[in-house]
């Protein structure tokens, strides 16, 4: 099985599993062979990792099946890890325009709306301001789009993961 690893810095790593045993694996990393061992220490996210004799205390948080945050030597790296089949499926999906939903990433209070129905947003445009932990946070659109539905009002308390605003893909406009 091949894996395609993308880091938030933009770097890509290609990895192939040549052989695997219990807790060990022989890998081909960007064409270089690496002997790995991998041990789940506490079933709470701590791992002991060995790569060709180098040793690492790694922490892993899975945000989804393919979105992983790996912490190493005090720094965290967001890694998207897809295998060859997922990659093939993903390429298909990427060719379609994206509808976007703005969710509350945490419970809080909507202290201000920055958009109106039908408004066109560029990627990165602010959508609303959410107050949580005594800080006001501006929530922005990732891909941009047309404001299709606004499900909250200013002053409203919202739960984590609550749907706030729906955007239609920009491409549909054209």
């Amino acid at each position, binding site marked *: 099985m091949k*894996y395609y*690893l993308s880091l*938030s*810095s933009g*770097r890509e*790593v290609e*990895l192939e*599993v040549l052989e*695997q*045993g*219990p*807790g060990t*694996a022989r*890998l081909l*990393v960007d064409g270089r062979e690496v002997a*790995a061992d*991998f041990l*789940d220490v*506490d*079933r*709470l*996210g*701590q*791992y002991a*990792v060995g*790569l060709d004799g*180098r040793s690492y*205390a*790694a*922490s*892993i*948080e*899975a945000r989804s099946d393919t979105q*992983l945050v*790996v*912490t*190493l*030597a*005090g*720094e*965290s*790296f967001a*890694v998207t*890890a897809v*295998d060859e*089949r*997922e990659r093939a499926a993903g390429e298909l999906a990427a060719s379609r325009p994206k509808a976007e939903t703005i969710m509350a*990433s*945490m*419970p*809080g209070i909507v202290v201000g709306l920055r958009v109106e129905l039908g408004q066109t947003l560029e990627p990165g445009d602010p959508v609303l301001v959410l*107050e*949580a*932990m*005594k*800080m*006001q*946070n501006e929530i*922005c659109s990732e891909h941009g789009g047309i404001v299709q539905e606004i499900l909250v009002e200013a002053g409203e308390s919202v739960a*984590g993961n609550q749907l706030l605003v729906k955007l239609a893909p920009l491409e549909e406009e054209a």
Partner: protein
Amino acid sequence: MPPLRKVLIANRGEIALRILRTCREMGVDTVAVYSEADREALHVRFANEAYLLGGPAPADSYLRLDRIMEIARKTGADGIHPGFGFLAENPALVAACEEAGVAFIGPPVRAMEIMGDKLASRRAMIEAGVPVVPGTTDPAADVDEALAAAEDIGYPVMLKASAGGGGKGIRVVREPSEMESAFSTASGEAASAFGDGRMYVEKMVVEPRHIEVQVVGDRHGNCYAIGTRECSIQRRHQKLIEEAPAVNLADGVSERIQEAAVAAAKAVDYFSAGTVEFLYSRGEFYFLEMNTRLQVEHPVTEEVYGVDLVELMIRVAGGEELEDLSALEPRGHAIEVRINAEDAANNFMPSLGTVSGLRMPFGPGARVDGAVYHGMEITPYYDAMIAKLIASGADREQARRRMMRMLQELHIGGVTTSAGLAMQILQTEEFCAARADTNFVERYLEEGRAPQREFADDLEEVAAIVAALHRIHQGAAPLRRESAAGGGLSPWVAVGRQRRLAGRANR
């Protein structure tokens, strides 16, 4: 005024625990108060007595002055320590303590009132001969007044909440067009945080560094400076990394700034612990504000001077006259990193969740002040700071490298923290040379610089490999399972799956 025997701690989290620890060491009994969200918190478990205040929202719990005073009365507490935040700088608590005959473990109400008002404190400082930043002496009632004031002073200016503190309600305004939006958000933040939306305008000091002085006074007229701290590493006026002493200052500044701090404190007849904050730029320093309470970064001073500031506060509140604190000898250097449950990679969004698995840094020179525990739920109701790491060393470089080592050891499962950003900042040239100003972190984030890592390995590649190993170990994708004809999973995959289930059951 006899020594205190039972102290009510009107706070939560890390600072409540910090105060509680000193009380226990002094043989002083502790009364904890808590919100419904905090029943199992460490500050509750480690206290001698604990009483429920109300619902999780601060207004229903930690800001409930009436309930707190009622519990103080019921339990016979003879002192109240407010920590920082919540009621710490609220004169109403001081007044209520006086009325109830309970010692307020903090400064006199007048000092709190003057220093709590930006403009009154400016006037007092000018009178005491403490240098201040040029700016207005009256608050701007609305955007137009603020615009007019800024025109007089000259852009860029700072817009600051008159009642502010802790970095809230502050905005930089570089040109007139930015004033309206800055005024409305800052004033709104101030109104929500302090119940007072008034703003004033100040000249913006160029490339300022944040230098502050710890002062401690008693009720017998003694007041001492206990060294300097540097807190220039901040984002949106929230400090991220602090250290003691401040280094890379022009000759004589360390002495003069400590003298100015004592003059500032004496101008308001200060006692207890407090911090006088200054902006420092090109050899000059300007009074910024005085925080009339214990500060988040107080441990770096404790480490360098071998002193317990909470103990001093409790002794002062008990009427004791302090020994000569100017005789304290500094030793080495200390650096503090705040660990906030927030995601620096995602616009510093608060990271909520349950802490599952915890590995704190130990060893020489490593202090941890924290209230975090396995199973703790990070809720949206309170501040995002869940722990502080403090590294002490014989010199600044040893403390810096020690802090890097501590951050490498740290693991807090289940939430995202600011630790990774701190790790990067500690390795920048600017931090190493101690010449970062208060805008450094924001510039650093905007630039999107590649981290300068002292760790030799190619960590990005290792992270990528670890991510792949995790997927392989988990038996990976459904696709893979389908392909295992006859359902014959390898033993490794089966074990991986069981472990995952066990892990989940535990969360």
